[in-house]
C-alpha cells in the first residue's frame, strides 16, 4: 500500500520561510538549486506554490524553475515519510546480494521504490551509489549510513528507526 497524499496548500508562514530562503541566496550566482535544497530541508519538499515565489524573486519564469525542480530526482513535490530509507541499487551492491535486499525491504515495508508506508513512517528510495562500495550492500536511513546490510540487519535497523514493519 502506498500513501500518495496530495500535499496540502502551504501556509503563509511557509511562504515567508521560502521568501526568506530566497533572500538569503539571491545574490549568489546561479542560486536556484541551493534555494531548492534549503526549501526542501525546511519544508520537507518543494511545494508547487514555492515555484512562483522563487521564480518571482530570482526573475526567472515559472517554467524554468519547474523544469529544474522536475529534473533532479532529489527534489520531491510532496512530503516524504518520517524517515527515508535509501537502498543502493548499483553494481557493487548488486554483487553482494543487493537485489535480494531490495526485495526484502519492499516486502517488509509493503511498498516499492519512491513510495511511503501507509503510516507515513518510512519512504523507500532508490539510490545509485553511496560510495560505500567496499562494504556493500549499502543503505542510508536519513543521513545515517550502513554497510554490509543483510535482510536481518535491515529489519533491525528499521526497528531501531522506529518504523512499523509489516509482519
Amino acid at each position, binding site marked *: 500500500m502506498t500513501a500518495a497524499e496530495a500535499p496540502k496548500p502551504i501556509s503563509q508562514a511557509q511562504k515567508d520561510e521560502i521568501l526568506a530562503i530566497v533572500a538569503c541566496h539571491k545574490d549568489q550566482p546561479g542560486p536556484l538549486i541551493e534555494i531548492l535544497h534549503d526549501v526542501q530541508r525546511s519544508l520537507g519538499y518543494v511545494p508547487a506554490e514555492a515555484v512562483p515565489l522563487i521564480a518571482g524573486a530570482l*526573475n526567472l519564469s515559472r517554467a*524554468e524553475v519547474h523544469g529544474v525542480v522536475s*529534473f533532479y530526482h532529489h527534489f520531491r513535490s510532496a512530503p516524504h515519510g518520517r524517515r527515508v530509507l535509501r537502498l543502493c541499487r548499483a553494481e557493487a551492491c548488486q554483487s553482494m546480494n543487493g537485489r535480494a535486499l531490495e526485495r526484502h525491504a519492499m516486502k517488509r515495508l509493503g511498498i516499492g521504490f519512491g513510495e511511503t508506508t501507509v503510516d507515513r513512517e518510512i519512504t523507500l528510495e532508490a539510490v545509485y551509489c553511496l560510495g560505500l562500495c567496499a562494504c556493500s550492500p549499502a543503505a542510508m536511513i536519513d543521513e545515517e549510513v550502513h554497510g554490509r546490510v543483510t535482510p536481518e540487519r535491515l529489519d533491525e535497523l528499521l526497528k531501531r528507526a522506529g518504523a512499523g514493519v509489516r509482519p
Partner: protein
Amino acid sequence: MYSIDHKDLGTPAPASTGTVTLDIDGSTVTVPAGTSVMRAVALAGGHIPKLCATDSLKAFGSCRVCLVEIEGRKGFPASCTTEVAAGMKVRTQSPRIQKLRRGVVELYVSDHPLDCDTCPANGHCELQDAAAELGVEGSRYANGGASQRGVKQDASNPYFVFNPDLCIVCSRCVRACDETQGTLALTIEGRGFSSRVSASQHQPFLESECVSCGACVEACPTAALTEKLPLMLGAPTKAVSTTCGYCGVGCSLKAEVKEETVVRMVPNRAGTANKGHACVKGRFAFGYATHADRVRRPMIRKRITDPWREVSWEEAISYTASEFKRIQQKYGPNSVGGITSSRCTNEETFLVQKLVRAALGTNNVDTCARVCHSATGYGLKHTLGESAGTQAFTSVMKADVVMLIGANPTDGHPVFASQLKRRLRQGATLIVIDPRVIDLVRTPHIEAAAHLQLRPGTNVAVINALAHVVVTEGLANDAYAEERCEGDTYRKWKAFVSDARNSPEAMEAISGVPAALVRKAARMYAAGPNSAIYYGLGVTEHSQGTTMVMGIANIAMATGNLGREGVGVSPLRGQNNVQGACDMGSFPHEFSGYRHVSDAATRSLFEGAWNATLASEPGLRIPNMFEAALDGSFRALYIQGEDFVHSDPNTNHVVAALSAMECVVVQDLFLIETARYAHVFLPGSSFLEKDGTFTNAERRISRVRKVMEPLAGLADWEVTMQLAQALGYPMHYSHPSEIMDEIARLTPTFHGVTYEKLERLGSIQWPCNDAAPDGTPTMHVGAFVRGKGKFYLTEYIATSERSTSRFPLLLTTGRVLYQYNVGTQTRRTANLAWQEEDRLDIHPDDAEDRGIADGDWVGVTSRTGDMVMRAVVSRRMTPGVVYTTFHFPESGVNLVTTENSDWATNCPEYKVTAVEVVRVGQPEAWQARIRAERGAQRSPALPTACSHRDEC
C-alpha cells in the same frame, strides 16, 4: 511547422565576415565563416535530414539525425553544431551514416503514432519526411514497450492545440519561446524518457505564462503543436507574402491560403522588421476579416435616425458625391473634409487626401495620427528635420543603453519587444520612464536598471531634469552638438536646462521621481556609448506632447546619440501605417513628404500633376472639424477607417459634432460606433483584400498583397477613385502600383520607390531616392536632415488637468497585448479568451481607501463624464494613478477623457484625466446594452476547442 514555401537551412546565418571554402561530397563550396556544416550543405543545394534544427533557432544538437562524416575527425559529428572550416572534407551520405540515422529515427518512431494518413501534419511533418527519406517504416522496438503516449491534448489556447502524443521532445518549442519570443513560458519537465514539454508548471497553455505568440507552433516539426484553423479547414496550398495589419512594427507575414481562405498566418523569416517572428494578433487574430459582422453592401440613409438601406455601389457613390457638392455649394468649399486612416495603405491614404485637396478643393484633410503621433511629426521635424524615427528596429541590437519612455512594447509592439528583450538579455541597460510598472520593468531575465515612475503629465519635468544632469555634470557631448547642431540654440538650451528649476531635486516634487534616480538614469544614458530612446503614446498624448518629443531630441543631440546604429530616437507607432499615413500628406497643412501647403513651389508641382487649383491655407484638424461642425461651418465628412466616437476624447462632444453634420460618410469593415451617426456607409476592405504598401515605425515600406477578393467587391482605393469620379474629378489607376508611381514622382523622399524595387529588395526604408537608392536604415548620418540640429527650450508647463479633492486620482490609458486600438478587429477574434472587457487598474492602497476589491464594478468620474467598469487591484500602479484600455465601446473610456490637447498639434491628452473612482453595483444601463448587443453579435472566429484526434 514553418511556412509551406520556406526552405529551412537548419541553422541561423552567422554574424561574420569572410568566407570559408570546404568540400562537401566532392564539390567545392564557399560559405560565410561560422556557418554550420548543415547550413553549408543546404546553401549548396544539398540536404541533410534533421529534426531539432531550424534556421530560426540556435543549433541544439539533440536529435542526432544530422550526423555526417568529416575527414580526420573521429566519429560522426552532428552537422548542425559543427562549424565549417577551411579545407574541411564533409561526407553527408554513406551506408554507415544512413544506418545510424535510421537507427535514431527508428527510436523516435518507437514511441510515435504511425497513423500519418490521419495526422494534421501529414505532408508537412519533419519526422515523417525523415522516416520516409531513410526508409523507416516502423520500429522493431515498439512492441509493448514503455510509452509516453496517451496524454490528453491541451486545447485551452483558442488558436492551437498541444498534443503531447505527437511530441518528439526536440525542444524547438521551448527554444522558440526562449530565444525568439523571450517569454520562457515553456520548459522540458522531468528528464530522460519521461522528459515532456510543459507550459509553466505543467499547466494548460492558457493558464501558463504563454503569451500565444505562436513561435512554438511554428517551430514544432510534427503536429504536437498545431493551429486549429488548418485542422478544421484543411491544409493551405499557397503562401502569399504580405504585411501585418496591426501595430507599427509592420511584420512581414505569409498568408497561407486554401483557395481564397486564409488558414494560417506565418511570419516571413526573411522579413527585416520582424525576423520571422509575430505576435498573437498578427499570427492568429485575422479571423475578423471574414467575420459575419463584415458589412458587404453599401448603405445610405437620409437621417441618422432612419434605418439603413442597402444600395448599390453606384447609388451610394453618386449620393455621396451629390451631397458633398450640395453642401459645398451651400456652405462653401471648406465646409467638407476627409479623414485618412492609418490602417489603410499608403496608396489609399494618398488618394483620400488627393480627393479632398484636388476634387473637393479644400485642405480639410486629417488622419487618425492626429490623436496618436502628430506630436512626433512636429517635434522631430523641427529639431532634426524629418518627421520620422531615426533607426531601423535592428539598430537596438547595437544599443548599450535603452531608454523607454511612455511605451509598453511587450503589449503594444510585441515583436519589437522580443528583439529588445534579446538585446537586454545580452546585457544592455534599460531605463523605463512610465507611471506604471510595465512588464519590462521586471520580467524573466530582464530588469530595468532604473524605473522612473513619474506622475502622469510630468514627462517634460523628467526630461528636463535628465538634461540638467547631463549638462551640469559635464556629460554632454559638446563636440558633437557644436558641430552637428545650431550652436546658439544648443548653448541657449544648456543654459535653460542648467537652471536650478530644472534640476532633478527641484523637479522631484512635480514628477514624484526621486532626484537620485533621475541622476542615475541620466548618467547611464549619457555613458552609452550607444544610447537609444524608444517612446510611445505616453510621450505624445499630452498637452506637452510636442514639447516632450523635442526634449527627447534635445537630449539625444546633446549626448551625440543620433546618426549611427545603436542610438537614435524611435517612436513606436500604434497602428500599422501611422508613419505612412503621415508621409502621404494626410495632414491639413502638408503635402506628402511633409511640405507645407503654403510653399508655392510644392503647390505648383501638385497643381501641375493633379490638374487642379490647390488651397494654400492649412485646413482643419480633426478636433477643429468638430468645433466647426458645432458652429455650423463644417457639414460633411468622408471618414475612411476611423472610429472617432470610440477613439477620440470627450465622446459626447464628438457625438454632438457628428450629429450636427449633414453628410457623414463612413468607410469601414464593420458598423463601428461612428457609423451610428453616419448617412452613408461604404463597406471597407481588409488588408487581405487589396494590394498596396504599409510604412512601419522604422520608415519601412512593405508590400501588402491581395489574398482574397474584397468582400464588398471593391478595395478601398477603388471606392475613393469612384467617389472622385462622381465628384467630377476622374482618377485613372488600374493598380495601386500606379498610385505609388505618382507618390514617388511627387515626393522627393520616395523618388526611388517602385513596386518592382519592393519586389526585389523585400522592403525599403525611406528616404529612397538617387542619394539612397536602396533606402535609408539610419537617418541623420553625418548631418541632420534639416542641416544643423535645432534645440528648443522645453519649459515644463503643468497640464490644466489636475487632481483635486474631488478628482483625486489621475487616469491614464494604454493597450493590452490581446486587443488592438478600439478593438474593432480583435474583438471579433478569439482573442477575447484573454480579455473581453476593459478594466480599471488601481493600486491596492487606493482600492482599500475606497472599499474596492478585485473584480468589483467601479464608477469612474471626471470633469467631462463618467463610466463604469470592473476594477483590477494591481501593484503595477502607483498610488494616485489608475489605468485602463479603450478596446471596448461599452466601457466609454472617452466619455471621461478631456478635450485638452497638445499645444502644437492638438493631439489629445488621453494620458492624464483627473478622476474619482467609487464602488458601484453594476454597469450603467447603456453600457449593459452595448455589452449585450456585442455579445449577441459575437460569433467567435474559432471554436474554443478542437478535438482533431477524434474527428479530423
